[in-house]
């Protein structure tokens, strides 16, 4: 079967859009869940995604240096995902505990500004990891180092493997292999990303709908005070929401690293804004809406590249955000109850 060149290119872009949309959807879920329970935009969410990517890179780098990545690549990738996920989760819970909980009663402006601060702190911490380690390890007592030399150089190398100003590169393990379907080449990497994302999102949906903690999350998002009177531990539920939302961002971070290879400390900003756009497009506070919004944005974005110069890709996302907020502020699947909180 042969396809016309136009349709061929279109299908290729469709696959691309699904891949990008998976990233957006995974990150958007974190925004939407946090907005659900706290009615605030977690400005640092894009940076939590970045921390996930860096934790994943550090892990896969270690596994590669001990040769484990070659001998058992599947398990190595699983471990990378788990560490990236946990790193992001713990960061998310910490950010909530230290930067959001103390200002919860101080008003919206205070919460948002604290979130901007948290975002800057996360980016700068990852960037400065080697510098900070060097400053601590260089502490001298008299003319002697406080720490033994071998320890210093070992730890410094670890710190340099983790963070720093320069862009870092994931090992190219997804490879270029793939298969051809109806004349369109589909790489295994893309299949892995899309399928894994869909499985995770299904799991999240089931968790929120059918488990005890999911019920608690829905209750808190409905009404914090009433939920608390019904015996829901509100603070613990909020922490759990941050844990799960950040875990999804961490997985997206590792995926982006494996797929695009290069990661930077400011990598979270643009995907963060786009994921937020997705969450708003789908209806903020609505979990299936965030997934839908992510895929729609991914597809619109890759299709826009067919019409406009590629440099305007980011402008398209911002324009969609602004148009959604003006004409459809409760989004595609949005719940009216969140509108009153705007």
């Amino acid at each position, binding site marked *: 079967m042969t396809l016309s060149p136009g349709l061929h290119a279109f299908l290729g872009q469709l696959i691309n859009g699904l891949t990008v949309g998976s990233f957006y959807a995974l990150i958007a879920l974190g925004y939407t869940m946090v907005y659900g329970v706290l009615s605030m935009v977690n400005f640092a969410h894009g940076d939590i995604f970045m921390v996930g990517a860096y934790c994943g890179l550090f892990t896969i780098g270690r596994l590669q240096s001990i040769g484990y990545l070659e001998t058992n690549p599947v398990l190595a990738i699983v471990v990378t995902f788990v560490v990236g996920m946990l790193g992001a989760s713990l960061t998310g819970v910490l950010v909530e505990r230290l930067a959001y909980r103390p200002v919860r009663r101080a008003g919206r402006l205070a919460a948002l*500004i604290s979130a*901007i601060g948290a975002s*800057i702190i996360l980016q700068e911490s990852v960037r400065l990891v080697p510098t900070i380690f060097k400053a601590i390890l260089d502490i001298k007592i008299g003319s002697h180092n406080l720490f033994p030399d071998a320890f210093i150089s070992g730890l410094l190398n670890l710190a340099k493997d983790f963070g720093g100003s320069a862009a870092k590169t994931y090992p190219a393990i997804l490879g270029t292999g793939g298969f051809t379907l109806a004349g369109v080449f589909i790489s295994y990497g893309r299949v892995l990303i899309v399928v894994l994302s869909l499985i995770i999102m299904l799991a999240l949906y089931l968790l929120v709908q059918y488990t005890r903690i999911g019920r608690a999350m829905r209750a808190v998002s409905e009404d914090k005070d009433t939920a608390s009177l019904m015996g829901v531990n509100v603070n613990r539920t909020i922490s759990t929401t941050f844990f799960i939302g950040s875990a999804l961002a961490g997985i997206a971070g590792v995926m982006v690293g494996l797929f695009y290879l290069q990661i930077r400390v400011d990598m979270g900003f643009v995907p963060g804004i786009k994921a937020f756009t997705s969450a708003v497009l789908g209806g903020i506070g609505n979990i299936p809406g965030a997934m839908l919004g992510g895929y729609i944005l991914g597809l619109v974005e890759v299709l826009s590249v067919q019409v406009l110069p590629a440099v305007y890709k980011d402008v398209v996302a911002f324009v969609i955000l602004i148009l959604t907020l003006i004409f459809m502020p409760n989004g595609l699947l949005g719940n009216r109850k969140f509108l009153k909180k705007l």
Partner: protein
Amino acid sequence: MTMIQNFIAVYARKRWLKWVVLALLAAALLAMPLLPIPQKNLWVRILGYAGLYILLGLGLLIHVGFAGMLDLGFAAYYGIGAYTYALLASRQFDIHLPFWVMLLVGGLVAALAGALISIPVLRLRGDYLAIVTLGFGEITRLLLLNLKGLTNGSQGVIGIDKPVLFGVVFNTGTHFYYLIFLLILLFTFLTNRLIQSRIGRAWLAIREDEDVAEMSGVNTIWYKLLAFVLGAFIGGLGGVVFASWQGSIFPDNFNLLVSINVLCLIILGGLGNQYGVIVGALALIALPDMLRGFSDFRMLIFGLLLVVMMILKPNGFLPRVPPRLEKAADGKIKPQEDRA
């Protein structure tokens, strides 16, 4: 510490003391470039740069501090003002309009941009407004970067004209130092008058509770639009000064970091207080320049400051002093007492 607190308590009560302190500060700042100080040029530059940020802070203060609209795209107005001047008074198109006219035009073009962005977003509040303005700021930067035929892209606009006044060409930092000083005086005075006026009261009402303000007969849409336009005007004007001082500008001069810096300084100083802006700008812009050794940690310290300030002192170092009538309404003082 108690001495400082006592001083502040007296300072708040005695109005003449306020003027004495301000006059002394102004005299010191005015005399500074004329005195023989080591590394004077560096100091003039640092303080002039801090002054530029004070100007921007006064603009953003109208958005965030007075009207309570969190604007994360303030760099856009700054950039629009700067590029308006740069394109109409440089070698780029070989147009050379006079600086003093362009100071106004740059402000007006930025104000127009502020009106255009604000019309669709005026119905939004809080977080949504913040994200939309952030998007607007980024769109502006991306357009400056990519409309290469007009802005020369990342190569920037170079060879921008210097201001000329009575035949004197502004070619040293000291000239700009005095220009910025005068503009700060002018706009501190104007915003001070504005906040005490009917407009200012409407803004504060919107900031405290938009629904109640609307029900009390405040035309919230109109006053929010006015706040957007006036704030953007000051931002654009700052951009014109920046472009003429630097002589060359690039899209990256107007990135998100600028918006966040300006936001930090008005929050640090205390939202809704013009004098707080001055304290905040000196602390945030001048201090890191003096502590060159810590420049690596500058942003990290910014971030920590934001979070810690929000937890400990969400109203800033110099919180807004409520106008007399508002104090009277709270029952804290009787109106008659205050007049004596």
